[in-house]
């Protein structure tokens, strides 16, 4: 079975290099958390995987499909959820899901059923026919997540999906993601909430200065820094190590 995501030698520069030769493999059905300080290059990597940015060099393979050579086939298998919910103010959640199902060419009967199930599941039923324009950030994020799930993707990529959510909404989103990985869907997520990564991710990757500086399970990362501690301490230590190699202070790095 091919890896859900396999990237190799990925680079990207804007006015300066932001991603510097990243290699990363995520297995099918895995929950993978990508951590890193602000500006480390996490979002840039994921946007390249989602087909929203073109890499300068390197390769991206999604479930065995070369995403750079055949982006349409790759996109058919995955979903992207950004930190800013991509929802139309003047569509209702149901209309939005109808639109997304149309883009992914989901069978209409199945799309209708899935859309209603998702709306129920995410607690949006009372608002199913209200325009999204007046929704809170949490509600918008749930609509966006429903959009990502309505076409049953095999790979879900989420960039800071829990930012700005209240505890209840965050719990719902986490439950949805857990059930999806239990069903064999691969989830790759960036987050600044280390507790979420610690509890949910099977493997964690740490990005700093555009490089993947560490990767593994929580235990493997603990072994690497040589002490039994929290992910927060591990993260800060690893980033500081990376920064020391680049001549930055610990505060600058974190």
């Amino acid at each position, binding site marked *: 079975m091919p890896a859900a995501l396999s990237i190799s030698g990925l680079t990207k520069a804007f006015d300066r290099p932001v991603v510097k030769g990243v290699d990363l493999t995520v297995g099918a059905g895995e929950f993978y958390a990508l951590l890193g300080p602000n500006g480390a290059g996490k979002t840039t990597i994921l946007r390249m995987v989602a087909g929203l940015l073109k890499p300068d060099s390197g390769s991206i393979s999604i479930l065995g499909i070369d995403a750079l050579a055949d982006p349409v086939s790759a996109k058919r298998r995955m979903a992207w959820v950004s930190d800013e919910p991509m929802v139309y*103010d003047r569509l209702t959640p149901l209309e939005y899901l109808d639109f997304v199902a149309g*883009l*992914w060419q989901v069978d209409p009967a199945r799309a209708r059923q899935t859309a209603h199930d998702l709306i129920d599941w995410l607690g949006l039923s009372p608002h199913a026919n209200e325009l999204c324009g007046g929704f809170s950030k949490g509600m918008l994020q749930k609509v966006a997540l429903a959009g990502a799930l309505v076409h049953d993707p095999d790979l879900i990529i989420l960039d800071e999906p829990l930012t700005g959510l209240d505890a209840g909404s965050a719990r719902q989103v986490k439950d949805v993601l857990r059930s999806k990985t239990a069903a064999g869907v691969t989830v790759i997520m960036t987050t600044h909430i280390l507790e979420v990564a610690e509890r949910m991710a099977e493997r964690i990757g740490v990005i700093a200065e555009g490089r993947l500086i560490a990767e593994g399970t929580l235990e493997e990362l603990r072994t690497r820094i040589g002490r039994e501690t929290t992910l927060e301490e591990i993260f800060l230590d690893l980033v500081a190590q990376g920064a020391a190699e680049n001549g930055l202070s610990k505060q600058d790095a974190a």
Partner: protein
Amino acid sequence: MTFAPASLPWLAAHEFRLAWRDTLAMMTGGRRVRLFGWLAGGGTVFGIMLLIAWFAVRPWVEAGIVIDKQALVMISGMGLLFWTVTLSQALEAVTRVYYGRSDLDLILSSPASSARLFAVRAGTVFVSTTALGLVLVSPLVMALVLQDGPRWFSAFLVIIALAALSVAVAMAVTRLLFRLTGPRRTRLIAQIVAGIVGAGFVIGIQAAAILSHEGFSRLAFFQSDAIVAAAPASDSLLWLPARAALGEPMPALLMIALSLIAFAATAALIAPSYGRLATAAAGLNHVRGQRRPQKRAFRPASQRQALRRKEFLLLQRDPWLLSQTLMQLLYLVPPALLLWINYGASSGDGTFIVIVPVLVMACGQLAGGLAWLAISGEDAHDLVATAPLTPSTILRAKIEAVLTIIALVMAPLLLMIGLAASPMALVTAACAAAAAAASTTIQLWFRVTAKRSMFRRRQVASRAATLCEAFSSILWAGTGALWAAGLPLAIGPAILALLVLAIARLLAPRQG
């Protein structure tokens, strides 16, 4: 110089700094060298306008300008036309003072006085309205100053006075709308009122001119014997602005003093309620509109159909579109009136020289606006970009949506023309299609990733696209007029329109 924090001058300095940086950024795009281009380009355009104005007023100056009733009627009429344009602008700008968020939440949540903030923002609207007026009128005034003497400088005072009056009326109307219709509807109604005011008077005069003279000239209307005879005597107070513009010192001073007092008094009266109303307007962001479930939801559709259906739904629910379409339709009233008057008359072809270009121009402009909304104004850009379809399929579907709407708007008008003179319907359809296609293509080449709410700023975001779109529509309108007149010269503007399209292609940024 430093001012006490949160004082009136401190807030004014803050506004000025933001406005200045905003303007500079829009003009230069971060590259100072572009500023010289703007200065050179602006100077050239001003020079050309001055030259046109020079020759336009020359016969009048050579004949000797006499301040009689006819001159007063004409200057007042033209002044009124100009005032409706500034009033329309002021209405839009004052509405933004209440509804534009940006830093409003920050300032309203601070201990700074909201009344002072309103005073400063009303002042900003006054300054921008005055600047617009001065830019529009200065070539004409300078042509008169250079040929007839410095007394015409007082026309600038009249511009300032009219701008102050416009803003005062706009503030009063907006406040009244808040009271009568509430914050939820005020913005939309104010936009529609602004559109109607901006276009309504011009159109009303044209309609009156058509009905009375079967002509199209506003100047001729103001110079007609019937209008001059019906106007009040020369010593009436009604002619105060015209006399002020003609350089009479007392009317000029009276005019500027009265209008500034009206502006200050209105601002002072309305300012205390600003914080409350702006907060109520902010609350609208959390209001949820209920919709009936779509009957056609979750039906089999291709990806392009799904995209088109989404575009139709969003355009249909766009209040901006509603007001703009209303304005476009208002502009079509005079030609429709001409058509109606001449309907059935076999000698109607002359009428089409007027109707065809108006329709073509309206079509080009409407297509440009719709194309921007559909192609650039994509609120869920990431979603569409990560969907499993090629970029060309996305663009094709969006263009189809725009052209379908244009076709729906134009079809009944073309049918009417077709009933009167079928060859003219063909001419209109061909030129309107060319204008719409050109505007859409320009928007396609200059596409950006933007939110639909940024529509208002689209013209400043790419002035090259705006100018190309305008020139293209004008040239296709010219082609239509000449073709309708049966002149082979029609090929001239058509070639120029294609040249404009080629220039647009060269100026357009490379799409990555």
